[in-house]
């Protein structure tokens, strides 16, 4: 299982680093979003701490969706996914490998985007460890839910619209928890327990990892 997992993941990373389709579109889109947000909100720089965390998470969520829409494009062409499913590889392994690839792509997109937000909005990261932890845990959640439904909607006519329609309600808790931790991390005057929200995110990740992994095999067979 480990070898098959690494083979699928390696294939995805190699193809992506050669073509850079998903990464470039995600990163460019997220930077444009940041600029739009700057024009829309940056009237009073002293209040940046209040809306900065929200801007970070909205940008991450929207840009991740752009990547998720493309994630299974290569599997769709020439029926590659059916080939994978017909091979002896377990469906759960395929899911975990694709979710890991999506996780890495999203993380690579987040890096420049968040630096840009911190620069543009002048956000002081007083508790960087908590912020990084929330970003990692939140990205795991986005990747799990996104990969599951992106695979299922691969052939749907209106997948670009359906994917956020389905995933965003499920991801609401992640956005709430992420914004809370980030508010604490940038030193906004809020009375929140960052560790409680991080534990909440960890719980979300664990339950959804098992649930999505299990459901992928069941749903793809239909």
């Amino acid at each position, binding site marked *: 299982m480990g070898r098959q997992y690494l083979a699928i993941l390696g294939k995805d990373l190699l193809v992506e680093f050669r073509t850079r389709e998903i990464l470039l579109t995600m990163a460019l889109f997220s930077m444009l979003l940041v600029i739009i947000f700057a024009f829309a909100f940056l009237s009073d720089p002293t209040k940046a701490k209040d809306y900065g965390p929200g801007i970070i998470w909205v940008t991450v969520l929207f840009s991740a969706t752009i990547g998720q829409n493309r994630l299974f494009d290569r599997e769709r062409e020439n029926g590659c996914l059916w080939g994978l499913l017909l091979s002896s590889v377990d469906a759960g392994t395929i899911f975990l490998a694709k979710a890991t690839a999506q996780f890495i792509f999203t993380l690579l997109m987040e890096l420049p985007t968040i630096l840009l937000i911190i620069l543009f909005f002048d956000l002081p990261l007083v508790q960087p460890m908590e912020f990084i932890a929330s970003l990692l845990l939140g990205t795991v959640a986005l990747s799990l*839910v996104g990969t*599951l*439904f992106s695979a*299922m*909607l691969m*052939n*749907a*006519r*209106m997948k670009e*619209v*359906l994917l956020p*329609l*389905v995933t965003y*309600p*499920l991801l*609401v*808790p992640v956005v*709430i*928890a992420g914004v*809370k931790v980030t508010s604490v991390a940038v030193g906004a005057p*809020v*009375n*929140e327990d960052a560790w*409680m*929200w991080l534990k*909440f995110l960890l*719980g*979300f990740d664990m*339950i*959804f990892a098992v*649930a*999505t992994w299990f*459901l992928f095999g*069941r*749903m793809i067979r*239909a």
Partner: protein
Amino acid sequence: MKSTSLHIILASLAAVVVCVALYLVFFVAPTEATLGIVQKIFYFHVASAMNMSLAFGVCAIAGAVYLLAKSNKWRKRADALGVATAEAGVMLGAMVMVTGPLWAKVAWGTYWTWEPRLTLSLMVFLLFVAYLALRAYAGSDAFGRSIAAGLAILGLPGLYFIRVAVERWGGAHPQVIYKGGLSHPAMRQAFFASIAAMLLVSASLVVLRFLIERRRQTLDELFLEADKIFG
């Protein structure tokens, strides 16, 4: 057909209980002192919210049966039940979303607050809408159905997390208490009657929709067979 008569019994029972509930709500239960006549929305609002949660629970169970059952017969039944409960759920959710703000404007002075229960109802409603959208637009039949079933199943842990998150999210605000509890026994009577009425109305709608969906499935099968013979 046996199931058709079940529907007729449910529908006629619903008609009677709705009349009784309306009578109890408007003629027997006293008008609330501070809120006045508006308080009577409460009977319909809470009843439809409770039934919406119930519909979502049944929909999730139907989704689980659809994805896990081996026999084709049970899968088709579960699928029909899933779409029936989801459509009833969207209707109930729309009622919750219309009556809620009307009540809130009088009780809390604003149409919408991000109170945990309100937020949770909104999210259940949105999940139901996504479920129906998936069934309608997610492409070929079996595929759209299984995605929708998966969403209904994931909705259960999802709603648990949404609930925990919105409760803690609103942490800084004072917990809103329903003004005018059901102190009067006649109020309590009317309340339970309206829950029963709403449950019967939803149940008869679900059964009716279930039967329609089953007929549609049978029609599909017949089409395939006819295709084999004549095609």
